[in-house]
Protein backbone atom coordinates (compact mmCIF):
# COMPACT_ATOMS: atom_id res chain seq x y z
CA UNK A 1 0.00 0.00 0.00
CA UNK A 2 1.30 3.45 -0.91
CA UNK A 3 2.34 5.62 1.98
CA UNK A 4 -0.14 8.45 1.73
CA UNK A 5 0.36 9.82 5.22
CA UNK A 6 0.90 13.34 3.85
CA UNK A 7 -0.68 13.52 0.41
CA UNK A 8 -2.47 16.86 0.87
CA UNK A 9 -0.41 20.08 0.68
CA UNK A 10 0.54 21.64 4.05
CA UNK A 11 -1.76 24.60 3.34
CA UNK A 12 -5.13 25.77 4.66
CA UNK A 13 -8.17 23.91 3.36
CA UNK A 14 -11.92 24.32 3.93
CA UNK A 15 -14.86 22.01 4.25
CA UNK A 16 -16.59 22.73 0.93
CA UNK A 17 -20.11 24.20 1.00
CA UNK A 18 -22.08 24.61 -2.27
CA UNK A 19 -22.98 28.25 -1.48
CA UNK A 20 -19.28 29.16 -1.86
CA UNK A 21 -18.87 27.50 -5.26
CA UNK A 22 -18.52 30.61 -7.44
CA UNK A 23 -16.26 32.46 -4.99
CA UNK A 24 -13.95 29.48 -4.56
CA UNK A 25 -13.58 29.10 -8.32
CA UNK A 26 -12.95 32.85 -8.71
CA UNK A 27 -10.27 33.16 -6.00
CA UNK A 28 -9.79 30.63 -3.23
CA UNK A 29 -6.48 31.94 -1.86
CA UNK A 30 -5.03 31.05 0.59
CA UNK A 31 -7.01 27.80 0.38
CA UNK A 32 -4.94 25.06 -1.24
CA UNK A 33 -7.33 22.10 -1.02
CA UNK A 34 -10.96 21.19 -0.25
CA UNK A 35 -12.65 18.58 1.86
CA UNK A 36 -16.11 17.09 1.23
CA UNK A 37 -18.35 14.89 3.33
CA UNK A 38 -18.49 11.66 1.34
CA UNK A 39 -22.17 10.98 2.04
CA UNK A 40 -23.31 14.20 0.35
CA UNK A 41 -21.83 13.02 -2.96
CA UNK A 42 -23.30 9.55 -3.23
CA UNK A 43 -26.32 10.41 -5.36
CA UNK A 44 -26.40 9.18 -8.96
CA UNK A 45 -25.84 12.60 -10.54
CA UNK A 46 -27.00 16.20 -10.60
CA UNK A 47 -25.38 19.38 -9.38
CA UNK A 48 -23.43 17.91 -6.41
CA UNK A 49 -21.40 15.57 -8.61
CA UNK A 50 -21.01 18.18 -11.37
CA UNK A 51 -19.57 20.68 -8.88
CA UNK A 52 -17.29 18.04 -7.42
CA UNK A 53 -15.93 17.16 -10.87
CA UNK A 54 -15.21 20.83 -11.61
CA UNK A 55 -13.59 21.47 -8.21
CA UNK A 56 -11.41 18.38 -8.42
CA UNK A 57 -9.85 19.73 -11.63
CA UNK A 58 -8.61 22.75 -9.68
CA UNK A 59 -7.91 21.50 -6.14
CA UNK A 60 -6.50 18.48 -4.32
CA UNK A 61 -9.54 16.89 -2.67
CA UNK A 62 -10.02 15.20 0.67
CA UNK A 63 -12.96 12.80 1.11
CA UNK A 64 -14.13 12.77 4.72
CA UNK A 65 -16.62 10.05 5.64
CA UNK A 66 -19.16 10.61 8.40
CA UNK A 67 -21.21 7.43 8.09
CA UNK A 68 -19.01 4.34 8.12
CA UNK A 69 -19.35 3.58 11.86
CA UNK A 70 -15.81 2.22 12.21
CA UNK A 71 -16.24 2.01 15.98
CA UNK A 72 -19.49 0.03 15.65
CA UNK A 73 -20.00 -3.35 17.31
CA UNK A 74 -21.52 -4.73 14.14
CA UNK A 75 -19.82 -5.36 10.79
CA UNK A 76 -19.23 -2.47 8.39
CA UNK A 77 -22.08 -1.94 5.92
CA UNK A 78 -20.88 -3.53 2.65
CA UNK A 79 -23.22 -1.33 0.59
CA UNK A 80 -21.76 1.78 2.14
CA UNK A 81 -18.20 0.57 1.64
CA UNK A 82 -19.04 -0.02 -2.02
CA UNK A 83 -20.43 3.52 -2.33
CA UNK A 84 -17.23 4.92 -0.81
CA UNK A 85 -15.16 2.88 -3.21
CA UNK A 86 -17.17 4.17 -6.19
CA UNK A 87 -16.65 7.78 -5.04
CA UNK A 88 -12.92 7.34 -4.33
CA UNK A 89 -12.40 5.49 -7.62
CA UNK A 90 -13.79 8.24 -9.83
CA UNK A 91 -12.65 11.23 -7.78
CA UNK A 92 -9.24 9.78 -6.84
CA UNK A 93 -8.88 12.13 -3.85
CA UNK A 94 -5.57 12.98 -2.22
CA UNK A 95 -6.90 11.69 1.10
CA UNK A 96 -9.68 9.62 2.64
CA UNK A 97 -10.49 9.95 6.33
CA UNK A 98 -13.09 8.70 8.82
CA UNK A 99 -13.79 8.88 12.55
CA UNK A 100 -12.95 6.88 15.65
CA UNK A 101 -16.67 6.69 16.46
CA UNK A 102 -19.81 4.74 15.67
CA UNK A 103 -23.08 5.91 14.12
CA UNK A 104 -24.99 2.80 13.08
CA UNK A 105 -26.70 0.26 15.29
CA UNK A 106 -28.31 -2.69 13.54
CA UNK A 107 -30.01 -0.96 10.61
CA UNK A 108 -30.46 2.48 12.22
CA UNK A 109 -28.10 5.26 11.18
CA UNK A 110 -28.02 7.77 14.06
CA UNK A 111 -26.33 10.62 12.14
CA UNK A 112 -23.92 11.46 14.96
CA UNK A 113 -20.38 10.47 15.95
CA UNK A 114 -20.89 8.36 19.06
CA UNK A 115 -18.17 7.40 21.54
CA UNK A 116 -16.66 4.03 22.41
CA UNK A 117 -14.56 2.72 25.29
CA UNK A 118 -10.87 2.13 24.69
CA UNK A 119 -9.86 -1.44 25.57
CA UNK A 120 -8.39 -4.54 23.92
CA UNK A 121 -11.76 -5.65 22.53
CA UNK A 122 -12.61 -2.34 20.88
CA UNK A 123 -9.02 -2.00 19.67
CA UNK A 124 -9.21 -5.35 17.85
CA UNK A 125 -12.55 -4.42 16.28
CA UNK A 126 -11.52 -0.93 15.16
CA UNK A 127 -8.24 -2.24 13.72
CA UNK A 128 -10.14 -4.93 11.81
CA UNK A 129 -12.55 -2.34 10.41
CA UNK A 130 -9.76 0.05 9.40
CA UNK A 131 -7.97 -2.79 7.60
CA UNK A 132 -11.18 -3.68 5.80
CA UNK A 133 -11.69 -0.08 4.66
CA UNK A 134 -8.11 0.16 3.40
CA UNK A 135 -8.45 -3.17 1.58
CA UNK A 136 -11.70 -2.19 -0.12
CA UNK A 137 -10.55 1.32 -1.06
CA UNK A 138 -7.03 0.20 -1.97
CA UNK A 139 -5.57 3.19 -0.16
CA UNK A 140 -4.38 4.28 3.24
CA UNK A 141 -6.97 6.08 5.36
CA UNK A 142 -6.67 8.63 8.16
CA UNK A 143 -8.54 8.01 11.44
CA UNK A 144 -9.77 11.07 13.39
CA UNK A 145 -9.86 11.55 17.18
CA UNK A 146 -13.40 12.30 18.42
CA UNK A 147 -14.77 14.98 20.73
CA UNK A 148 -16.01 13.45 24.00
CA UNK A 149 -18.63 14.50 26.53
CA UNK A 150 -18.32 11.48 28.84
CA UNK A 151 -15.99 8.63 29.78
CA UNK A 152 -16.49 4.85 29.90
CA UNK A 153 -15.92 2.77 33.02
CA UNK A 154 -14.61 -0.05 30.81
CA UNK A 155 -11.90 2.01 29.10
CA UNK A 156 -8.45 0.57 29.83
CA UNK A 157 -6.16 2.83 27.84
CA UNK A 158 -5.83 6.45 26.82
CA UNK A 159 -7.19 7.70 23.49
CA UNK A 160 -3.66 8.55 22.30
CA UNK A 161 -2.42 5.01 23.09
CA UNK A 162 -5.49 3.57 21.35
CA UNK A 163 -4.92 5.60 18.18
CA UNK A 164 -1.18 4.87 18.19
CA UNK A 165 -1.92 1.14 18.39
CA UNK A 166 -4.59 1.21 15.63
CA UNK A 167 -2.09 3.00 13.39
CA UNK A 168 0.68 0.53 14.26
CA UNK A 169 -1.54 -2.49 13.55
CA UNK A 170 -3.13 -1.24 10.32
CA UNK A 171 -0.68 1.26 8.84
CA UNK A 172 -3.40 3.91 8.79
CA UNK A 173 -2.52 7.56 9.25
CA UNK A 174 -4.22 9.85 11.75
CA UNK A 175 -6.31 12.99 11.45
CA UNK A 176 -5.75 15.19 14.48
CA UNK A 177 -8.70 17.45 15.31
CA UNK A 178 -7.19 20.05 17.62
CA UNK A 179 -10.60 21.46 18.55
CA UNK A 180 -11.77 17.97 19.51
CA UNK A 181 -8.69 17.63 21.73
CA UNK A 182 -9.52 20.92 23.43
CA UNK A 183 -13.21 20.00 23.83
CA UNK A 184 -12.51 16.50 25.21
CA UNK A 185 -9.70 17.66 27.52
CA UNK A 186 -11.88 20.42 28.98
CA UNK A 187 -14.89 18.13 29.36
CA UNK A 188 -13.00 15.23 30.91
CA UNK A 189 -10.46 17.20 32.93
CA UNK A 190 -7.08 16.49 31.36
CA UNK A 191 -4.39 18.66 29.79
CA UNK A 192 -4.85 19.33 26.06
CA UNK A 193 -1.10 20.04 25.69
CA UNK A 194 -0.36 16.75 27.45
CA UNK A 195 -2.64 14.97 24.93
CA UNK A 196 -0.76 16.54 22.00
CA UNK A 197 2.59 15.63 23.56
CA UNK A 198 1.45 11.99 23.85
CA UNK A 199 -0.01 11.89 20.31
CA UNK A 200 1.92 10.07 17.56
CA UNK A 201 2.34 13.27 15.53
CA UNK A 202 4.51 11.57 12.90
CA UNK A 203 1.35 9.75 11.74
CA UNK A 204 -0.72 12.91 11.30
CA UNK A 205 -1.71 13.53 7.68
CA UNK A 206 -4.20 16.32 8.35
CA UNK A 207 -5.30 18.66 11.14
CA UNK A 208 -8.89 19.86 11.73
CA UNK A 209 -9.91 23.14 13.37
CA UNK A 210 -13.49 24.12 14.19
CA UNK A 211 -15.65 26.13 16.53
CA UNK A 212 -17.39 24.86 19.66
CA UNK A 213 -20.15 26.06 21.99
CA UNK A 214 -19.78 26.40 25.73
CA UNK A 215 -22.33 25.03 28.22
CA UNK A 216 -22.23 23.71 31.80
CA UNK A 217 -22.71 20.20 33.17
CA UNK A 218 -24.71 19.17 36.28
CA UNK A 219 -21.76 20.08 38.53
CA UNK A 220 -21.37 23.55 36.99
CA UNK A 221 -18.18 22.61 35.11
CA UNK A 222 -17.69 23.83 31.54
CA UNK A 223 -19.14 21.40 29.01
CA UNK A 224 -17.92 22.20 25.50
CA UNK A 225 -20.01 21.09 22.53
CA UNK A 226 -18.32 20.41 19.19
CA UNK A 227 -20.76 22.41 17.06
CA UNK A 228 -18.75 23.48 13.96
CA UNK A 229 -20.93 26.57 13.94
CA UNK A 230 -18.59 29.51 14.65
CA UNK A 231 -15.01 30.80 14.65
CA UNK A 232 -12.14 28.82 16.14
CA UNK A 233 -11.46 30.22 19.63
CA UNK A 234 -8.06 31.62 20.71
CA UNK A 235 -7.11 28.73 23.07
CA UNK A 236 -7.57 26.30 20.16
CA UNK A 237 -5.32 28.44 17.91
CA UNK A 238 -2.76 28.37 20.74
CA UNK A 239 -3.06 24.57 20.95
CA UNK A 240 -2.56 24.43 17.17
CA UNK A 241 0.67 26.43 17.58
CA UNK A 242 1.81 23.98 20.27
CA UNK A 243 1.04 21.11 17.87
CA UNK A 244 2.68 22.56 14.73
CA UNK A 245 5.84 23.43 16.68
CA UNK A 246 6.20 19.67 17.33
CA UNK A 247 4.76 18.18 14.12
CA UNK A 248 5.98 20.65 11.52
CA UNK A 249 3.60 21.98 8.83
CA UNK A 250 0.51 19.94 8.05
CA UNK A 251 -2.63 20.39 5.92
CA UNK A 252 -4.98 22.51 8.09
CA UNK A 253 -8.75 22.30 7.60
CA UNK A 254 -11.29 24.86 8.79
CA UNK A 255 -14.57 23.03 9.51
CA UNK A 256 -17.69 25.21 9.60
CA UNK A 257 -20.72 23.00 8.96
CA UNK A 258 -23.59 24.74 10.78
CA UNK A 259 -24.73 28.35 10.42
CA UNK A 260 -22.34 28.40 7.46
CA UNK A 261 -20.95 31.95 7.06
CA UNK A 262 -20.34 33.92 3.89
CA UNK A 263 -17.09 33.29 2.04
CA UNK A 264 -15.20 36.37 3.38
CA UNK A 265 -15.84 35.23 6.99
CA UNK A 266 -14.70 31.69 6.24
CA UNK A 267 -11.72 33.01 4.27
CA UNK A 268 -10.65 35.09 7.29
CA UNK A 269 -10.30 31.84 9.24
CA UNK A 270 -8.18 30.32 6.49
CA UNK A 271 -5.92 33.41 6.53
CA UNK A 272 -5.38 32.84 10.24
CA UNK A 273 -4.54 29.20 9.48
CA UNK A 274 -2.05 30.39 6.83
CA UNK A 275 -0.33 32.63 9.40
CA UNK A 276 -0.14 29.71 11.86
CA UNK A 277 1.64 27.68 9.16
CA UNK A 278 4.00 30.51 8.17
CA UNK A 279 5.71 30.63 11.57
CA UNK A 280 6.40 26.87 11.59
CA UNK A 281 9.87 25.78 10.46
CA UNK A 282 9.43 23.27 7.62
Amino acid at each position, binding site marked *: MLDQTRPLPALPGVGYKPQHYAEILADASPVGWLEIHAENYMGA*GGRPLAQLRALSERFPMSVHGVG*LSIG*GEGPLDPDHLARLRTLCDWLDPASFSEHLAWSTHESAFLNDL*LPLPYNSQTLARVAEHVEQVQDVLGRQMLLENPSSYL*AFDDSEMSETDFLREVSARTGCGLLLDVNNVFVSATNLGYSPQGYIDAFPLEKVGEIHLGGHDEEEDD*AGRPLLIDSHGREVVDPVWALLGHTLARSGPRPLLIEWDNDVPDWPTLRAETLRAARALEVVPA
Partner: protein
Amino acid sequence: MSQAAFTHALLDPDRSEPEGLSDGFGAPAGRRFSVYRNNVTVALIDAMAAGFPAVVKLLGEENFRNIAREYARAHPPQSPLMVLYGADFADFLAGFAPLERYGYLPDVARLEYALRESYHAADAAPVAPDRLAELPPETLAEARLTLAPTLRLLCSPWPALSIWRFNMQDGAPKPEAAAEDVLIARKEYDPAPHLLGPGAAAFIAACQQGARLREAAEAAGEGLDLGAVLGLLLETGSIVDVLHENSP
Protein backbone atom coordinates in the same frame (compact mmCIF):
# COMPACT_ATOMS: atom_id res chain seq x y z
CA MET B 1 -22.09 -1.10 28.15
CA SER B 2 -23.44 -2.21 24.77
CA GLN B 3 -24.19 0.00 21.79
CA ALA B 4 -27.71 -1.43 21.85
CA ALA B 5 -28.29 0.07 25.31
CA PHE B 6 -26.72 3.35 24.18
CA THR B 7 -28.92 3.47 21.07
CA HIS B 8 -32.15 2.69 22.91
CA ALA B 9 -31.45 5.42 25.45
CA LEU B 10 -30.61 7.87 22.63
CA LEU B 11 -33.92 7.36 20.86
CA ASP B 12 -36.14 7.12 23.96
CA PRO B 13 -36.05 10.24 26.16
CA ASP B 14 -37.99 8.43 28.90
CA ARG B 15 -35.15 6.00 29.50
CA SER B 16 -32.44 6.93 31.98
CA GLU B 17 -28.90 7.15 30.66
CA PRO B 18 -27.02 3.82 30.32
CA GLU B 19 -24.86 2.46 33.13
CA GLY B 20 -21.09 2.57 32.96
CA LEU B 21 -20.69 6.19 31.83
CA SER B 22 -19.01 8.88 33.89
CA ASP B 23 -18.31 12.58 33.66
CA GLY B 24 -14.53 12.10 33.78
CA PHE B 25 -14.44 13.45 37.35
CA GLY B 26 -15.68 10.29 39.08
CA ALA B 27 -19.42 11.02 38.99
CA PRO B 28 -22.09 9.47 36.72
CA ALA B 29 -22.40 11.07 33.25
CA GLY B 30 -25.80 12.61 34.06
CA ARG B 31 -26.88 15.19 31.54
CA ARG B 32 -23.66 14.75 29.57
CA PHE B 33 -25.41 11.80 27.94
CA SER B 34 -28.13 14.24 26.87
CA VAL B 35 -25.60 15.98 24.64
CA TYR B 36 -25.58 12.90 22.39
CA ARG B 37 -29.35 12.47 22.71
CA ASN B 38 -29.85 16.09 21.74
CA ASN B 39 -27.30 15.99 18.88
CA VAL B 40 -28.95 12.94 17.35
CA THR B 41 -32.49 14.27 17.63
CA VAL B 42 -31.75 17.82 16.49
CA ALA B 43 -29.66 16.69 13.53
CA LEU B 44 -32.44 14.39 12.30
CA ILE B 45 -35.12 17.06 12.77
CA ASP B 46 -32.94 19.65 10.99
CA ALA B 47 -32.45 17.27 8.08
CA MET B 48 -36.21 16.78 7.83
CA ALA B 49 -36.91 20.53 8.00
CA ALA B 50 -34.37 21.16 5.23
CA GLY B 51 -35.95 18.43 3.08
CA PHE B 52 -39.62 19.43 3.53
CA PRO B 53 -39.74 23.26 3.59
CA ALA B 54 -43.34 23.53 2.33
CA VAL B 55 -44.57 21.07 4.98
CA VAL B 56 -42.72 23.20 7.57
CA LYS B 57 -44.64 26.27 6.36
CA LEU B 58 -47.96 24.45 6.35
CA LEU B 59 -47.56 23.04 9.86
CA GLY B 60 -45.58 25.88 11.41
CA GLU B 61 -42.01 25.40 12.62
CA GLU B 62 -42.87 24.16 16.12
CA ASN B 63 -45.53 21.66 15.05
CA PHE B 64 -43.27 20.39 12.30
CA ARG B 65 -40.36 19.84 14.69
CA ASN B 66 -42.59 17.94 17.13
CA ILE B 67 -43.91 15.68 14.38
CA ALA B 68 -40.45 15.23 12.82
CA ARG B 69 -39.12 14.20 16.27
CA GLU B 70 -41.76 11.46 16.50
CA TYR B 71 -40.99 10.39 12.95
CA ALA B 72 -37.23 10.30 13.56
CA ARG B 73 -37.60 8.20 16.71
CA ALA B 74 -39.94 5.74 15.00
CA HIS B 75 -38.15 5.79 11.63
CA PRO B 76 -34.44 6.55 12.12
CA PRO B 77 -32.46 6.66 8.86
CA GLN B 78 -31.68 3.23 7.43
CA SER B 79 -28.55 4.38 5.58
CA PRO B 80 -25.92 7.11 5.96
CA LEU B 81 -27.27 8.87 2.85
CA MET B 82 -28.98 11.66 4.73
CA VAL B 83 -29.67 13.48 1.44
CA LEU B 84 -32.39 10.88 0.83
CA TYR B 85 -33.76 10.65 4.39
CA GLY B 86 -37.53 10.91 4.76
CA ALA B 87 -38.70 8.60 1.95
CA ASP B 88 -41.64 7.35 4.01
CA PHE B 89 -42.44 10.64 5.78
CA ALA B 90 -45.51 11.17 3.55
CA ASP B 91 -46.89 7.76 4.59
CA PHE B 92 -46.14 8.60 8.23
CA LEU B 93 -48.11 11.86 7.89
CA ALA B 94 -50.99 10.00 6.23
CA GLY B 95 -51.21 7.66 9.22
CA PHE B 96 -50.76 10.36 11.86
CA ALA B 97 -54.19 10.70 13.48
CA PRO B 98 -53.90 14.33 14.71
CA LEU B 99 -53.39 15.45 11.07
CA GLU B 100 -56.37 13.58 9.70
CA ARG B 101 -58.12 16.84 8.71
CA TYR B 102 -55.16 17.91 6.57
CA GLY B 103 -55.46 15.23 3.91
CA TYR B 104 -53.34 17.17 1.41
CA LEU B 105 -50.20 17.20 3.59
CA PRO B 106 -48.88 13.76 2.54
CA ASP B 107 -49.04 14.71 -1.15
CA VAL B 108 -47.19 17.99 -0.53
CA ALA B 109 -44.52 15.90 1.27
CA ARG B 110 -44.46 13.46 -1.68
CA LEU B 111 -43.94 16.38 -4.07
CA GLU B 112 -41.03 17.70 -1.99
CA TYR B 113 -39.41 14.30 -1.73
CA ALA B 114 -39.79 13.77 -5.49
CA LEU B 115 -38.02 17.10 -6.10
CA ARG B 116 -35.15 15.94 -3.88
CA GLU B 117 -34.90 12.54 -5.61
CA SER B 118 -34.87 14.27 -8.98
CA TYR B 119 -32.07 16.61 -7.83
CA HIS B 120 -29.80 13.65 -7.05
CA ALA B 121 -30.86 11.41 -9.97
CA ALA B 122 -28.47 10.41 -12.75
CA ASP B 123 -27.61 12.82 -15.55
CA ALA B 124 -28.75 11.99 -19.09
CA ALA B 125 -28.21 14.09 -22.22
CA PRO B 126 -31.50 15.11 -23.90
CA VAL B 127 -32.24 14.60 -27.61
CA ALA B 128 -32.17 17.60 -29.95
CA PRO B 129 -35.46 19.57 -29.81
CA ASP B 130 -36.30 18.76 -33.47
CA ARG B 131 -35.77 15.03 -33.08
CA LEU B 132 -39.50 14.17 -32.97
CA ALA B 133 -40.45 16.58 -35.75
CA GLU B 134 -37.98 14.85 -38.10
CA LEU B 135 -39.92 11.59 -38.02
CA PRO B 136 -42.83 10.78 -40.37
CA PRO B 137 -46.08 10.56 -38.33
CA GLU B 138 -46.48 6.81 -38.91
CA THR B 139 -42.93 6.15 -37.64
CA LEU B 140 -43.44 8.45 -34.66
CA ALA B 141 -46.65 6.62 -33.67
CA GLU B 142 -44.73 3.35 -33.39
CA ALA B 143 -41.67 4.90 -31.63
CA ARG B 144 -40.76 4.44 -27.96
CA LEU B 145 -39.30 7.24 -25.85
CA THR B 146 -36.51 6.77 -23.35
CA LEU B 147 -37.27 9.30 -20.61
CA ALA B 148 -34.79 10.90 -18.23
CA PRO B 149 -34.15 9.19 -14.87
CA THR B 150 -34.82 12.59 -13.25
CA LEU B 151 -38.59 12.45 -13.98
CA ARG B 152 -41.13 11.84 -11.22
CA LEU B 153 -44.95 11.77 -11.40
CA LEU B 154 -47.46 12.62 -8.68
CA CYS B 155 -51.22 12.15 -9.13
CA SER B 156 -52.98 13.86 -6.25
CA PRO B 157 -56.69 14.12 -5.41
CA TRP B 158 -55.68 17.48 -3.87
CA PRO B 159 -54.30 20.66 -5.42
CA ALA B 160 -50.88 19.55 -4.15
CA LEU B 161 -48.86 21.64 -6.61
CA SER B 162 -50.95 24.79 -6.08
CA ILE B 163 -50.54 24.40 -2.31
CA TRP B 164 -46.79 23.89 -2.72
CA ARG B 165 -46.50 26.98 -4.96
CA PHE B 166 -48.62 29.10 -2.63
CA ASN B 167 -46.18 28.30 0.18
CA MET B 168 -42.92 28.40 -1.75
CA GLN B 169 -43.30 31.07 -4.45
CA ASP B 170 -44.04 34.76 -3.95
CA GLY B 171 -47.24 35.90 -5.60
CA ALA B 172 -48.56 32.39 -6.32
CA PRO B 173 -52.38 32.35 -6.36
CA LYS B 174 -54.44 30.87 -3.54
CA PRO B 175 -55.10 27.16 -4.20
CA GLU B 176 -58.57 26.10 -5.30
CA ALA B 177 -60.05 22.66 -4.72
CA ALA B 178 -59.03 20.38 -7.61
CA ALA B 179 -57.17 17.16 -8.24
CA GLU B 180 -53.72 17.80 -9.72
CA ASP B 181 -51.33 15.62 -11.72
CA VAL B 182 -47.75 16.82 -11.50
CA LEU B 183 -44.59 16.10 -13.46
CA ILE B 184 -41.26 16.80 -11.78
CA ALA B 185 -38.64 17.34 -14.48
CA ARG B 186 -35.04 18.46 -14.20
CA LYS B 187 -33.66 20.84 -16.80
CA GLU B 188 -29.88 20.57 -16.36
CA TYR B 189 -29.55 20.59 -12.53
CA ASP B 190 -32.71 22.30 -11.26
CA PRO B 191 -35.82 20.15 -10.80
CA ALA B 192 -39.18 21.90 -11.15
CA PRO B 193 -42.82 20.74 -10.91
CA HIS B 194 -45.21 21.17 -13.87
CA LEU B 195 -49.00 20.85 -13.82
CA LEU B 196 -50.20 18.19 -16.28
CA GLY B 197 -53.37 18.21 -18.36
CA PRO B 198 -55.88 15.31 -18.57
CA GLY B 199 -54.31 11.94 -19.40
CA ALA B 200 -50.74 13.29 -19.50
CA ALA B 201 -49.61 11.45 -16.36
CA ALA B 202 -50.95 8.14 -17.73
CA PHE B 203 -49.23 8.87 -21.07
CA ILE B 204 -45.85 9.55 -19.41
CA ALA B 205 -46.17 6.52 -17.13
CA ALA B 206 -46.90 4.30 -20.14
CA CYS B 207 -43.87 5.73 -21.98
CA GLN B 208 -41.70 5.03 -18.93
CA GLN B 209 -42.88 1.42 -19.07
CA GLY B 210 -41.80 1.08 -22.69
CA ALA B 211 -45.10 1.59 -24.56
CA ARG B 212 -45.09 2.88 -28.14
CA LEU B 213 -46.37 6.45 -28.48
CA ARG B 214 -49.59 5.18 -30.06
CA GLU B 215 -50.18 2.77 -27.16
CA ALA B 216 -49.32 5.41 -24.54
CA ALA B 217 -51.78 7.85 -26.13
CA GLU B 218 -54.50 5.16 -26.10
CA ALA B 219 -53.78 4.49 -22.41
CA ALA B 220 -54.13 8.22 -21.71
CA GLY B 221 -57.67 8.47 -23.09
CA GLU B 222 -59.51 11.12 -25.08
CA GLY B 223 -58.66 14.25 -23.11
CA LEU B 224 -54.93 13.98 -23.87
CA ASP B 225 -53.27 16.96 -25.56
CA LEU B 226 -50.42 14.97 -27.16
CA GLY B 227 -48.68 18.04 -28.58
CA ALA B 228 -48.64 19.75 -25.18
CA VAL B 229 -47.18 16.82 -23.28
CA LEU B 230 -44.52 16.09 -25.91
CA GLY B 231 -43.69 19.80 -25.97
CA LEU B 232 -43.26 19.82 -22.18
CA LEU B 233 -41.04 16.73 -22.28
CA LEU B 234 -38.86 18.23 -25.02
CA GLU B 235 -38.68 21.66 -23.43
CA THR B 236 -37.56 20.24 -20.08
CA GLY B 237 -34.92 18.04 -21.71
CA SER B 238 -36.72 14.92 -20.48
CA ILE B 239 -36.49 12.83 -23.67
CA VAL B 240 -33.17 11.03 -23.72
CA ASP B 241 -33.70 8.83 -26.77
CA VAL B 242 -36.29 8.03 -29.46
CA LEU B 243 -36.30 4.40 -30.53
CA HIS B 244 -38.02 3.48 -33.81
CA GLU B 245 -37.73 1.01 -36.67
CA ASN B 246 -35.16 3.15 -38.50
CA SER B 247 -33.08 3.76 -35.34
CA PRO B 248 -29.39 3.15 -35.88
